[in-house]
């Protein structure tokens, strides 16, 4: 494996980590506020379809992005109504949202485009184009640093940079702002927030809305940047890998980034090598596919440090009698 191959694998790691990272941060906001979300997958899928559909019709990827975010936020709102307003089971609501997205996207795609549940391929302004970082061309010939800068760091779509900037931003919001303090409090002990005169419902809806926003960007990235259009079930379990990464990261932003990079790396390797040969030991591609899930189970099992979720997670808030 030469240096250039390595650069290529890392480059593809970054591309593949981006949707995971956005979805993972989305889940982080929701779950730190005490609302479990296993519907990340559905929201991403819905956003992927609407962003691709609107981008295909209008030719504007930015309108597509907005449409994707809007679609994802509608589903997030539905989750909020079920989980917060009507105090329903958050897990069941998440399951329902995943199916809703899986069904509706194909149904609408078929109705609008008649292409067997996909959107037309996006071209030109319908896609996010790679951004070239300053001096990329100039630095490219420099050994080692040149390829790292020009190939690995430069040349991604703007959403990639956005996703990685969202990591410090999320950390800052959670730990340095009033909103973050209240958000974390409502995930630990909503009664404390309520008796302090702050609306539990309002905070949780805000968290769920942020979750919708980030899932929307994640979905739009999938359909308009990573690929050129929507195809049926194109999220392919990424929402669940993001969930796995969230647990792996123990609900912390910086750790979430590392977890997503790790899982993205696994995907990149699996994509490049069908069967990976490490010193005579052949690792079948299926192992690479399953590894994120296996690692998450190991983390959940507490053999490698215990993952303790926010204390009020999954529980609807009911005032005590």
């Amino acid at each position, binding site marked *: 494996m030469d240096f250039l191959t390595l650069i290529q694998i890392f480059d593809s790691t970054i591309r593949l980590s981006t949707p995971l990272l956005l979805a993972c941060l989305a889940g982080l906001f929701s779950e730190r506020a005490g609302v479990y979300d296993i519907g990340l997958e559905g929201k991403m899928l819905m956003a992927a379809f609407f962003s691709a559909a609107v981008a295909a019709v209008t030719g504007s990827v930015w309108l597509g992005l907005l449409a994707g975010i809007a679609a994802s936020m509608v589903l997030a709102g539905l989750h909020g109504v079920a989980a917060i307003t009507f105090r329903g089971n958050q897990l069941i609501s998440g399951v*329902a949202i995943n199916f809703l997205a899986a069904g*509706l*996207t194909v*149904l609408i795609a078929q109705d609008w485009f008649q292409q067997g549940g996909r959107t037309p391929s996006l071209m030109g302004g319908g896609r996010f184009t790679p951004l070239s970082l300053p001096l990329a061309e100039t630095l490219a010939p420099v050994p080692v640093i040149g390829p790292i800068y020009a190939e690995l760091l430069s040349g991604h779509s703007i959403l990639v940079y956005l996703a990685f900037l969202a990591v410090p931003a999320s950390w800052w919001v959670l730990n340095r702002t009033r909103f973050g303090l209240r958000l974390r409090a409502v995930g630990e002990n909503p009664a404390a927030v309520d008796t302090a005169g702050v609306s539990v419902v309002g905070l949780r809806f805000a968290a769920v809305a942020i979750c919708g926003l980030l899932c929307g960007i994640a979905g739009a990235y999938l359909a308009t940047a990573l690929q050129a259009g929507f195809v049926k079930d194109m999220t392919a379990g990424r929402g*669940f890998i993001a969930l*796995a990464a969230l*647990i792996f990261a123990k609900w912390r932003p910086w750790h979430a980034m590392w977890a997503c990079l790790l899982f993205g790396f696994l995907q990149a390797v699996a994509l490049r090598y069908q069967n990976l040969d490490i010193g005579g030991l052949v690792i079948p591609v299926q192992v690479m596919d399953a590894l994120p899930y*296996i690692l998450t189970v190991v983390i*959940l099992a507490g053999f490698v440090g215990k993952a303790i979720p926010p204390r009020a997670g999954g529980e609807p808030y009911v005032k005590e009698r």
Partner: protein
Amino acid sequence: MDRMPKWADVVLIPLISLILAAILSALVILGIGEDPVAAVKMMVSGALGSTYGWGYTLYYATNFMFTGLAVAVAFHARLFNIGGEGQAMLGGLGVAIACLYVPWPHWTLALGGAAVLAALFGAAWAAIPAWLQAKRGSHIVITTIMFNFIASAVLNYVLVNVMRPQGSMDPATARFSETVHLPTLHELLAPIGISFSKAAPANVSLLVAVAACVLVWLLIWRTRLGYEIRAYGHSETGALYAGISPVRITMIAMLISGGLAGCMAINNVMGEAERLVLNATEGAGFIGIAVALMGRSHPFGVFLSAILFGFLYQGGAELALWTSIPRELIVVIQALVILFTGALDNMVRMPLEKLFLSLRKGRA
């Protein structure tokens, strides 16, 4: 006092939820420019208008009874088993092994043997998440989701690298032998003079599924183990107080649940495909969630809602065949049923409770 009469809780709330889901589904059909009334007519005639339709409806219903019961049993112990899909996949592997590597003399023995192996494989796949929940407190919802993905990777590996016959490009096992062929409803009913469609896949597994409904009912409501499962489901501290081991109940409930999900394979793998293919489960494990929620985790309710979903599946397939409505409509309906009967239960329940309260006050 209870806030509502029992019949309202058991019948009225699911019915209203179902009607709400139906109304929204109709709107979806309208939205894509089709006529919901015509669609329903086509679904009814396609799914129930012929023995062919019934044969498919009941075939799907058989799958959903197994997976619905699986979810329901776990629900009674307050465990949310989303892993029915993976457990059913592994059940398929068990059936394939039983059917391919054991020279059964007769289908009855094969059915028994395959069912046992299917249940064992399904239970084994549920056992790890169950043990992790019971001993390490790992959230079973997340672990069972993860195990679904791991199961599909396992199945993929086995079908591509191990069980695929030489020379075949298809990631599937060889066809099972003729002796393990399960009689279809056509073959079962013909001797007693009822003619049933030859082409439909409903088979003797349906009877096994119905028997499973009865057995689960006995287990949950009439045995000591069922008493302990329900007690644990209502209150873990209560179970500890009564000397009911949470670890034991978690394990047993999940093993039964996984076993039931695994048993689905005798229907779809042994009864229909007669070989193991990739994605043999076709999401039936997830439909079990909707079926159990709709059926209020009661075996009789599961039986009824499994048939309802069987009807939806077959009806939906007919729609996809004759109109421009894709099969995914069923997925939407399934989502709406889960949403209304599961997550939005309180939306229906709270106004109803108020209504009954004011009725009672009015009478008093």
